[in-house]
């Protein structure tokens, strides 16, 4: 045989998480959990930075609050709640199944988590914009 051949092809790369062909629901749940998780960590630090404005007194904070009440930020808030719901509810499924509980029901759990995420998102949107 000649050498070890081509390693790059179909090799190990995070881009393969996003190759949609042939993948099933579980992989999408995994990818979504990764993306929301990283997004939420980023938001944690963003949140801390925003909250630091409180150190600069009432004017600075209340001015920021006015900005955050604009529709575009409210929409981002709904996105945040959605992200939390996806990560939290799918995380609950992963915690159960990944600990060896309800393994045979993993697909039903995934569907249930999806439905709940939808409901939470709906409530958040209505609550925010209504």
């Amino acid at each position, binding site marked *: 045989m000649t050498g*070890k*051949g081509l390693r790059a092809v*179909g090799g190990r790369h995070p881009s393969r998480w996003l190759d949609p062909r042939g993948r099933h629901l579980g992989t999408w749940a995994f990818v979504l959990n990764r993306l929301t998780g990283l997004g939420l960590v980023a938001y944690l630090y963003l949140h801390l930075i925003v909250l630091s404005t409180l150190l600069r007194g009432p004017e600075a904070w209340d001015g920021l609050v006015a900005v955050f009440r604009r529709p575009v930020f409210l929409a981002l808030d709904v996105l945040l709640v959605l992200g939390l719901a996806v990560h939290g509810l799918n995380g609950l499924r*992963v915690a159960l199944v990944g600990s060896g509980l309800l*393994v045979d029901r993993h697909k039903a759990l995934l569907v249930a988590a999806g439905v709940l995420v939808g409901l939470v998102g709906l409530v958040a949107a209505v609550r925010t914009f209504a």
Partner: protein
Amino acid sequence: MSEDQPRMVLLRVFRYRSGDEAPRYDEFRVPIGPRTTVLDALLGVRRLQDPTLTLRHSCLHASCGTCGMRVNGREVLACVTRLDGLGDRVVVEPLAGAPVVGDLVVDMEGFYRRLGPSGRPLVRASEQAAPELPDLERFEDCIECGLCLSACPVAATDPRYLGPAALAAAGRLLEEPRGADPAAVLGWVDDAHGAWRCHVAFECSEVCPAGVEPAGAIMGLRRRLLRDRLSRLAGLHDREARP
């Protein structure tokens, strides 16, 4: 088969040869019948259109596990995947995550190295069959095709991940040790790149052509590891009996 004009399908086949700068895709038009499999079509291509096409195959009935490849992105055994119903354009690529040796052939060494520490318990040596087992010995169902490793989103990025097949083998050993030491097996899989690296995507069980359900086996291992750890924490066991 019908005497009408056979339906034609366009195969887009991944091609790579040692020394090539980059892989390419070659297109072949192949006639198909209702029973024509991807493997039938590829062997037809090799016989009639391009004798340089390299691929692995042996048993032709999903028993040997050599003809694993990705068809339209999905891991399948080419020998039992019918072309009828896959559309007029079918993309055929080698399994992912293993070095491509040529065209559709990947190097399986990594797969078998992962399987190594399990002692390959899946094939039962009849002489060692324990008396409490059913009187008949049988091969276990894993055919070592590597589809699970190719489909696994964790193996897609972590070269050290033991992977579904090896973990399923470990799970099998715990179910029926056949002389193996369960504590050693548990120590082997209780690793950041072992049973705990799995992220519950269940892709391995989805693509497994032999119904092995590796994901279920991994979850069983984790349940066992958690139970042992919790009972130790609760003081029900003496200290860890590991060296």
